């Protein structure tokens, strides 16, 4: 599975979304499931899945799926999977 597919899975399970849910356009607080508590579960799940440590500022700035993907890239995850 590509890292983006893994990230999509992390989003769906952390935010309690259906298996087929399209998450690529998601933004923080744009849906009720992605509230601040879910944001913390999401960050923790990303850290577990990709074995990265996410800083406070990165966590605060991760306000969309696209930004989450960019954050993984910054931590060398996207590059490794290519």
């Amino acid at each position, binding site marked *: 599975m590509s890292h983006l597919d893994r990230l999509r899975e992390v989003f769906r399970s952390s935010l309690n979304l259906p298996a087929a849910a399209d998450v690529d356009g998601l933004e923080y*607080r744009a849906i009720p499931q992605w509230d601040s508590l879910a944001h913390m579960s999401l960050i*923790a799940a990303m850290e577990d899945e990709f074995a990265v440590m*996410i*800083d*406070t*500022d990165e*966590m605060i700035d991760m306000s969309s799926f696209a930004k989450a993907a960019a954050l993984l890239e910054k931590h060398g995850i996207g590059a490794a999977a290519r």
Partner: protein
Amino acid sequence: MTVFTLSAAEREAALLPALTALTERHRLACEPYRRILDAIGAAGPYDRVAALPWLPVRLFKTHELRSVPEEQVFRVLTSSGTTGQRPSRIYLDREAAAAQPRMLAATLRAVLGERRMPMLIVDSRSVVRDPALSARGAGVLGMMNFGRDHTFALDEQGELDAEAVKGFLARHGAEPYLIFGFTYMAWLHLRELGMDLSQGVLVHSGGWKKLAEQSVDNPEYRRRLGEECGLRRIHNFYGMVEQIGTVFLEGPDGGGLYCPDFADVVIRDPDTWQEAPPGVPGLIEVVSTLPTSYPGHVLLTEDLGVVHGVDDGVWPGKRFSVLGRLPRAEARGCSDTYRQAAA
């Protein structure tokens, strides 16, 4: 990068134009605010931060004070409010909502660093689960950004969960970790725990009323938690929902609360409204450049405080303490004029 860099003079030079611009921005965009300024005859130019017109903080309970159109409101925050009072309502647009956790993070970085430390929370998990989040829950949730492996020290009944804490210390006790709790709860439960917390960084906030009843002041608080739990890094902070994102943070030496570069305090004599000199207690006015979507940039609180010194502590600027609430009757008098003007 730290936000505790500006001396009193540099801060004044930076804040005066920024706060003056905010005053004009809110005057144009917020009709009730404009009426208040008109009624008290406030008009620029202002020659210093202490000359800017202030709003009594309780006006946010009685008036809808926002400077953005309704459709641009992204979040509405509410305060707990004391019994029988309506809560404050604070209107944030997308920009203000994004700025506040960032600036809070920049402030706390001075004592926590960039990394999210393992975090022990002196509260019950249920406070953050409540869908209509209490002010207490919102406070805990806001702080959880700074931690990882969030562990709650109290069970759902609010009793100490010693097993959970033991487990946390077994996992993380050898490295620095964050402890967050409300001032009185941290005092009560951390001492009850009777465990070695010497690697912990305690960040706490909230009222001192119950502690004052037991004659516990801040030096005593620090001393006893140091003696009984081994805590050496303790940081109180002072902040309010009406100026969300801005907190005044106790320095490493416990020598008072310090202002981040984008904020300041003015202590006012409650009889003359003039600025009180260091050492003389008065009402605390808090100023901050963060409130861009509502006129909360210059607020007169109902808390009494005192400035201990200026540019003489571990960080530059004023260092001050909060002494407690102003008795209710006195507070009413001072905001009557404002309430009539805004009505």
